[in-house]
């Protein structure tokens, strides 16, 4: 656990109080109250268009709440890994320079880059298995490689809270498993709090320690996985019969096609 976390007087990392989300005073969801505790891995899930990314952007202060408040432990450092499609690739910038930008964000604007900063950036690239990508232009990398570099950039800022938006979108099974294992290690070894937004329930089933399920009507259910992800609730929310089970100790989720009939 970092010294910042140990020294913090706050019991939570983030706390939303009667929060209303939306754009231009139009609320997508209202009256959301929950908190994110230290060392938690919170999966924010829900059907497409329910406002997951809007909630994330509001929690991070990128969007102003329509109503209510978001309180963040000011002593903690946060890093954000956006969807890689949101990053403009017109800049002729190498993967190493991208990571350095994340690292230098923590420093004074007047501080010059040094050899130690480069070592931190190279180490961050190595940790995500992207050490050979350093000299390559970011725009020339594949989607999966860009995602790794953006994760390295977030780590180079040495955060206490890591926030990821659809971190495995477009990845194959091996890439997805590698990222999830890596994030779990970060959480367990360093006590890093992780917030992950995904439309893939299967991604967080065996990874998150708690779930915040958003519904299309703008309400949330928040709590431990067993309490939140129930077959009846998911089936009603997604409009298809969903079955939950275990295979080899791992939680599994499937759509019951026989129950759904032929589509």
């Amino acid at each position: 656990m970092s010294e910042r976390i140990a020294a913090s007087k706050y019991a939570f990392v983030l706390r939303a109080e009667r929060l209303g989300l939306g754009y231009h005073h139009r609320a997508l969801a209202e009256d959301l109250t929950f908190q994110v505790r230290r060392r938690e891995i919170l999966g924010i899930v829900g059907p497409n268009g329910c406002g997951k990314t809007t909630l994330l952007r509001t929690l991070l202060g990128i969007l102003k709440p329509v109503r209510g408040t978001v309180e963040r432990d000011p002593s903690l450092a946060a890093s954000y890994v956006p969807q890689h499609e949101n990053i403009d690739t017109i800049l002729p910038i190498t993967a190493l320079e991208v990571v350095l930008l994340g690292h230098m964000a923590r420093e004074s604007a007047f501080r010059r880059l040094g050899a130690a900063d480069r070592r931190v950036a190279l180490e961050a690239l190595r940790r995500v298995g992207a050490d050979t990508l350093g000299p390559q232009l970011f725009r020339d990398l594949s989607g999966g490689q860009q995602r790794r570099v953006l994760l390295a950039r977030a780590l180079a800022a040495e955060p206490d809270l890591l926030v990821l938006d659809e971190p495995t979108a477009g990845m194959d099974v091996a890439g997805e498993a590698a990222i999830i294992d890596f994030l779990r290690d970060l959480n367990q070894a360093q006590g890093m709090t992780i917030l992950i937004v995904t439309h893939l329930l299967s991604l967080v089933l065996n990874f998150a320690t708690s779930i915040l399920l958003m519904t299309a009507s703008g309400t949330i259910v928040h709590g431990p996985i067993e309490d939140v992800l129930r077959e009846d609730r998911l089936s009603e929310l997604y409009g298809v019969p969903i079955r939950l089970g275990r295979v080899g100790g791992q939680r599994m989720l499937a759509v019951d096609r026989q129950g759904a009939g032929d589509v």
Partner: protein
Amino acid sequence: MFEVPFMRLALGASAAASVALGVVGVYLIIRRVVFLGLVLANAATVGAAVGQIFGWPPEIVGIVTTVAAGLALGAIPAPRRISAESIMGWAYATAAATTVLILAGAARADADTLHFLYGNVLAVRPSHAAGLALLALAVLAVHGLFAQRFLLVTFDAEGAHVGGVNARGWSLLLNLWIGVTTAAAVHELGVLLTFSLLTLAPTTSLLVTRSLRSTFFVSAAIGVMAVFLGLVGSWYLDLPPGPSSVVPLSVAVVVAGVLGNRFSRRAKPASPK
């Protein structure tokens, strides 16, 4: 040709302005706000026109209106139903029309005023050439100090904000910096050449370079070469210097586009998934 003092002054002034505009122009292009350059250049002429009418120093009023325009456009939240460029188009049309209307209604708007507003690098005064040289040095100093922050908020403003950087403040500062540079250059070079140096030189550079450092350097160098060629063409062909300098800039974009595509196809490594 360059033994004539006014030509030496013109070359020195336009080369200094080219360096300044070439550097800030790269930010303009990578932020995808090309029209902002045109808006700022025209905001400077509005200020100068107002200054002429009321007898205030036009350079100062021009800088004030340009900075105000840069800050105002930077503060407008991203529109959801139209593109940001649409707002820039509105601002450009408003500023250009306002300048013409102010001048049309002003008894003091004579040929000298028009030269002042729209620039004539052949008539640049030594003090103004020195001012442009200082401007170029200041631009390079600001770039050297704050390039990391400017690039950070350009690359991913939201990530920077979450990381604790005042992304909005740095974006406004960047707009302000571009605005002051544009306003200072437009009085000597005119709107056309200022806008061309702000956009065409960086565009050419981005097409042929593959590193940040070389992008800024090549952008400034292309601007300097273009104004040199423009002044030579202007001298021998008896043409106005501004448009003469735009011609090599325009050709450079086309050539860089063709060469850049070929170079890029050869240089781009195969990207495994």
